[in-house]
């Protein structure tokens, strides 16, 4: 049976604006990626020429395209959160769908890129740079997959209701925060992996 609080007991929700608890996860996850980025950059310092030589084998155009895809998808999801807050259900559904469709392009390009590398004989064991390339982009890709799943669940939920309620708005905002993190992490990965070797 549902449990209720004792009468008169104050809660955070009564007095404070809603604060998405997903920020705990976001902070920890970003800190982890901070460690990963730090490890990569410090390892790179041991042999920058070799790292750059390997990085130059990556296709900057694919990396740039994926950056634009994620930023666009993130923008659409941000608009969907705004739509949820003004109770505009048709716009919420449309924008979430747009974010998912655009975001799907990332998987197409990334998997194509992985396939091209493996076909060219480049694997995580080729050298240290590609070890980190596959590990870092692999961890990011898992986050991307989780984010896409979250967006699909949100869309399904939005399609099943007749009007936007507070729970749906909060879910869209929390999911959106996660999706922006996926985007943000890629914005760090792209210059670190693709551009550092290309600009020399």
């Amino acid at each position: 049976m549902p449990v209720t609080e004792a009468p008169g007991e104050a809660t955070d929700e009564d007095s404070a604006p809603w604060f998405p608890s997903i920020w705990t996860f976001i902070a920890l996850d970003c800190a982890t990626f901070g460690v990963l980025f730090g490890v990569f950059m410090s390892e790179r310092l041991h042999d920058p020429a070799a790292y750059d030589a390997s990085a130059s084998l990556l296709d900057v155009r694919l990396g740039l395209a994926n950056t634009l895809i994620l930023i666009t998808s993130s923008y659409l999801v941000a608009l969907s959160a705004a739509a949820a807050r003004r109770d505009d259900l048709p716009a919420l559904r449309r924008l979430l769908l747009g974010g998912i469709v655009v975001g799907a392009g990332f998987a197409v390009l990334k998997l194509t890129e992985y396939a091209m590398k493996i076909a060219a004989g480049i694997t995580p064991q080729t050298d240290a740079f590609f070890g980190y390339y596959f590990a870092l982009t692999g961890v990011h890709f898992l986050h991307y997959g989780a984010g896409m799943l979250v967006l699909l669940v949100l869309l399904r939920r939005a399609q099943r209701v007749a009007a936007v309620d507070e729970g749906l708005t909060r879910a869209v905002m929390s999911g959106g925060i996660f999706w922006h993190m996926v985007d943000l992490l890629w914005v760090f990965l792209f210059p670190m992996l693709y551009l550092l070797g290309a600009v020399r």
Partner: protein
Amino acid sequence: MPMINPYQHVRLCIWAGVVLLFIEVVFWGILGQNIPPYSPALDAQAYAEVFRADADVIRIGMTGAVMGGILYMFWTVGITKIMEPIERANSANNVLSTLQMWSGGLTTVFFIVPPGIWLGSTFRAQTMPPDILQALTDVAWMLFDMSATTGSAQLIALGVCILSDRRRIPIIPKWIGWMGIYVGASLVMFAFMPFFKTGAFARNGAINFWFELPAFFLFMVLSTIFLLKAIPKLDAEYAAEHVAKT
């Protein structure tokens, strides 16, 4: 009708997690020469030399680790008993607590079997060929690290359950739930371990050893604190329901 105590022994089970942590650090870690582990980049001969020199101490350490591993199951059962009333209050089924218990139970196996393999390799360490000695260590590490997905499933199920608590003041703070999901998900990075003999993702590397394992153990400590704090709240909740019925 006398009131039953639905949380009898639960505190003991949860405290067992703290004892397990102590055993893991002292027996598996310090005596077992796993803080830090021997480098996987060593060749078999070099590995055999350092391992044989420490074999007697490692034997004591791994004996303690194998014997103490079962305490993880106690901790798991304790968590299950805290999760069940959260699920009941939500009028939900018990999928999350069941998933947590089964995956925690399976994780227990990996607190016992890999140390057992390390222990086995100490038994004839002085006469065993170096490459077999090293292969046994490799197998133990692969099982120990790669089985982390059972721990992932356990922590994520716990985390989702904590987040689903509909009480206005949750029994366990929601940030602990998110932390459980985070630590559970981050254990997936162990998947890179088989591909690296050096660097951050190697079994003695910055990410794989110095980040992943402390994150898991830190979550055990933090969650244990809040699991113990949950018991008086659940006791009071049960007593209030019991009084209301009688």
